[in-house]
């Protein structure tokens, strides 16, 4: 296990295969919570947190329960149940331990269950073949963390742009979602530039 592998996974998930702008996962919160910079930051932190933990638990579930008992067809059901209960659990823990953090993240946590990027990273960890490789658990967790960071990065970029767009003079019919999509398109075009990077 080299540090190079870790960096490759991180750069890969944050920039080259950014979950939002190049794989198009997690678009509902990306469009819904990117109106204000501080709520975007709160949502992003909550997603990083849940994705990292979800990668850990779904990997363990797949490796030590689903695979040995040959019930991998239950993957989708078991993963979504794990993620839903994890989100609920995280919400309760944060509420008890740190009420201040709960105030900031609280409203975003229930939304994360239906964030397809969380289930997406869990399924992608399995599809990338981490189960059979050495240090698979560690790689999964890194990939989950990287995916969450990439999501947060694009969310913050988008929120910054949208705050400025509020003041811009745009055609009446284009206000709201249409201009947001076109902005996201231009942002995705910029991220396309990372696609040529080889690590």
């Amino acid at each position, binding site marked *: 296990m080299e540090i190079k592998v870790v960096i490759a996974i991180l750069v890969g998930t944050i920039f080259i295969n950014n979950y939002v*702008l190049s*794989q198009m996962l997690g678009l509902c919160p990306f469009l819904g919570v990117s109106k204000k910079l501080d709520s975007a930051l709160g949502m992003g932190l909550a997603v990083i947190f849940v994705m990292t933990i979800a990668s850990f638990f779904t990997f363990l579930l797949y490796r030590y329960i689903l695979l040995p008992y040959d019930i991998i067809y239950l993957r989708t059901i078991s993963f979504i149940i794990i993620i839903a209960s994890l989100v609920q659990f995280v919400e309760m823990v944060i509420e008890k331990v740190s009420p201040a953090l709960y105030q900031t993240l609280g409203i975003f946590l229930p939304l994360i269950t239906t964030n397809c990027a969380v289930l997406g990273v869990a399924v992608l960890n399995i599809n990338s073949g981490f189960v059979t490789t050495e240090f698979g658990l560690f790689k999964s967790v890194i990939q989950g963390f990287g995916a969450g960071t990439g999501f947060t990065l694009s969310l913050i970029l988008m929120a910054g742009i949208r705050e400025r767009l509020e003041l811009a003079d745009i055609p009446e019919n284009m206000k709201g979602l249409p201009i947001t999509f*076109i902005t996201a398109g231009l942002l995705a075009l910029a991220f396309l530039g990372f696609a040529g990077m080889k690590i």
Partner: protein
Amino acid sequence: MNLFQEFKKGIWEKNPILVLSLGMCPTLAVSTSISNALWMALATTFVLLGSNILISLIKGFVPAHVRIPVYITIIATYVTIVELYLHAFQPAVYKSLGIFIPLIVVNCIILGRAEEFASKNGVVASAADALGMGLGFGITLTVLAFFRESLGANTILGYTFIEGMEPSSAMILAPGAFITLGLMLWGMNAINSRKKE
């Protein structure tokens, strides 16, 4: 309660993608070709129909505070059926839709309709609602895929679109998806505001 009205509203008036803006991830990600879009629409409609019918049947027994996990589990069961079916009988489709088949579970259209409609209405009305929403989703997805496939790969359902045209690969990738959907939403707003005048 007019059944045809329940069916019809999903297509334009309450179109799940263009008006309710639900289910964005599969919309943008699988609209790279018309055949992908049609398979996705079919799979989603099946899951939507099954879950809407079952949820409207059990709505009396499920306690309110555990309803979301129950709905998600029901939806995940139907998605597993679709996943196993496609894996067994349509391996090419299974491969090209890839990760977006398990992700039908978190398609907000399905949970949204379960919460919004099936948990409050009867079985027949829920089935009509599911079919209408599925059709609206399918039509929007296919139109989006038509633009992206014709401009991005210069083909329509595998046939050449315009002889000798240079396709723009950005249309197949993420930017094309965002910009095309943005323009479609713009067009829809323009038509609606003209109607009002």
